């Protein structure tokens, strides 16, 4: 118990880690708030600089950026009616009307306190649920990991995109990119075309920077001339009666957010929208109608999206399957540091698990401090024109892609992935499944081959194994259910 507490408090007691968490949270608030910058973009660039650091230092900074970033989007949603992040789309629906009524400060204060409550509940759920899930996941075999990997990619593709086919294409494209290089089992060259640069494979960080950073910069060019609206901000710290009044709603939304966040493929954005919808249905007589400045409409999505952070860590740490795009990047960071997220992570490296729990708690406390202060400087910074931000994103992407292996060719690759990502985004594809495919592709490949070797290369035996073991059966049924629900006849029946 004392040992666990010691692991939990690592970043609380180490001044360096404390500082990095604080800096990460503060930076995350700005990254999440500035339209054009995103948490996924920032974390993918950050990994390329922090991979040489000690794992705790890297995680402290990245976790801070993640927690701060999910919250930060709310500020611009309230002040400018521009959600800084997708998870703040629902926040703008009632946050901006509140600001127009001169209640911007109150809305920011309330969203900060509720975000922190949601965030802490999400972390508590992580601490309680992860060890139980990990104990169970130890029983997983190669074929189960293969199925989990496929389910993870398909879930992201299904839930985040505009059609299942587009999600599946994006996921498969990612798997394909992940296959480039020498086969780790047979050293056969795959899509290398004789290039030495391709033999080692494409570092997923380079793909991430291209698809998230450069592509987003190109998409943002469309909005380069948009000028932000200015709002007056007065009292920020919310009144205790207000907090107490909305606490029950906050707790309900936190529970929902944690659950949604824990599902691979979902994340803060879906959690926030569902919580908003749930609040709208369950609030009988709001003081102000939803959409016109209802505080319930502000609180529900804000608590849910921050609670989803803790939830997203659950499948990532226990099964090695990321809950959303940012945890997909964090899983990459763990791989870079030689760690293998999965059920054994909790038994082999309990210090790391409890460090993450402690660090996320700390980041939420910093969020409370930074969320309730520095609003005046903040309003100046978020007014930074996109015309300056976009070129800076490109330069940061270039240095990030280069830094991972000090190889200039990676800059070209990141820029090329950026162009591909731009085209995909313009035609309604999500780039999240691509990145998940790049990361999970090699895992699926290795586990498929192990499972097939286990079945002595007998296709019949392979499929029999998939349905004759309880865990494999449940996962196979989940996969089949996911595929069936995407078929036209099923969709017609649902309508």
């Amino acid at each position, binding site marked *: 118990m004392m040992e666990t507490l010691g692991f939990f408090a690592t970043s609380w007691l180490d001044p360096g880690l404390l500082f990095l968490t604080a800096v990460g949270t503060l930076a995350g608030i700005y990254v999440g708030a500035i339209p054009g910058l995103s948490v996924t973009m920032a974390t993918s660039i950050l990994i390329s600089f922090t991979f040489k650091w000690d794992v705790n230092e890297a995680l402290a900074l990245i976790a801070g950026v993640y927690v701060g970033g999910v919250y930060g989007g709310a500020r611009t949603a309230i002040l400018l009616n521009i959600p800084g992040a997708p998870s703040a789309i629902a926040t703008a629906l009632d946050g901006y009307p509140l600001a127009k009524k001169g209640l911007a400060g109150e809305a920011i204060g309330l969203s900060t306190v509720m975000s922190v409550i949601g965030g802490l509940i999400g972390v508590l759920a992580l601490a309680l649920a992860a060890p139980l899930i990990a104990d169970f996941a130890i029983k997983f075999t190669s074929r189960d990991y293969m199925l989990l990997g496929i389910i993870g990619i398909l879930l992201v593709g299904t839930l985040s995109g505009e059609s299942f086919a587009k999600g599946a294409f994006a996921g498969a494209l990612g798997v394909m990119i992940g296959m480039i290089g020498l086969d780790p089992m047979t050293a056969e060259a795959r899509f290398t075309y004789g290039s030495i640069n391709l033999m080692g494979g494409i570092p997923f960080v380079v793909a991430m920077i291209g698809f998230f950073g450069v592509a987003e910069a190109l998409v943002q060019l469309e909005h380069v001339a948009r000028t932000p609206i200015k709002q007056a901000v007065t009292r920020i710290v919310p009144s205790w009666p207000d907090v107490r009044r909305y606490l029950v709603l906050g707790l309900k939304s936190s529970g929902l957010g944690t659950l949604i966040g824990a599902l691979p493929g979902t994340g803060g954005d879906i959690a926030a929208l569902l919580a908003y919808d749930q609040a709208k249905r369950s609030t009988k007589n709001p003081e102000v109608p939803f959409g016109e400045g209802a505080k319930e409409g502000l609180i529900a999505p804000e608590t849910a999206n921050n609670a989803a952070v803790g939830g997203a860590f659950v499948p990532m740490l226990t099964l090695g399957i990321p809950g959303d795009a940012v945890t997909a990047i964090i899983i990459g960071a763990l791989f870079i540091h030689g760690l293998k997220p999965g059920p054994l992570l909790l038994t082999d490296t309990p210090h790391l698990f409890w460090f993450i729990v402690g660090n996320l708690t700390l980041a939420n406390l910093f969020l409370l401090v930074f969320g309730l202060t520095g609003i005046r400087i903040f309003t100046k910074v978020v007014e930074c024109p996109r015309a300056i931000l976009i070129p800076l994103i490109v330069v940061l992407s270039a240095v990030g892609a*280069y*830094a991972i292996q000090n190889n200039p060719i990676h800059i070209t690759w990141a820029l090329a992935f950026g162009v591909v990502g731009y085209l995909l985004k313009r035609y309604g594809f999500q780039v999240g499944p691509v990145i998940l495919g790049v990361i999970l*592709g090699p895992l699926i490949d290795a586990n498929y081959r192990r499972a097939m070797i286990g079945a002595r290369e007998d296709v019949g035996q392979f499929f029999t194994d998939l349905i004759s073991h309880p865990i494999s059966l449940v996962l196979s049924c989940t996969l089949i259910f996911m595929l069936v629900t995407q078929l036209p006849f099923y969709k017609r029946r649902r309508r």
Partner: protein
Amino acid sequence: METSNQLRPGERLFALLLVLVAGFVFAEAHAISGFRGLTTGGVMPMLAAGVMLLSSLLILADTLRKPRNGSGIQALIAYLLPLRVVLFAGLVTVYAALIPGLGFLAASGAFLFVAIWGLWRRGPVLAAALSTLSILAIYLLFRVVFQVVLPLGSLWQTGKLWS
């Protein structure tokens, strides 16, 4: 807001391009180890390429079901390749090409200056000041704090822009 029910300019062409790309990738995946076994290095690439091919065909079929929106090549260019994007992408290409010769800091400084000047349109002096400040911040953060060895550039090492 665009929905999946509306055909975007050039969407059919893009879907067709995806089918062709997926077909090519499948052929390349098959070339790795063919159908020699079920655990060879080419199996997963073939499976992934198969999914790409199947899903791209579904995407193409979906675009064929949507009514034509009558948009021509001009609408496609306006949607996909507006002048700003084309010029910016061109600038980014030049930037990437210049890094090995000019070095990261000089190439980034020049890129930032031209890009900010072109996009912001507040005059060259402000653009120069901002790009200088940005480069200084990037140098301090990445070279000094993160200790990233930034490309120096062949021009400063050998006197040649292209090595």
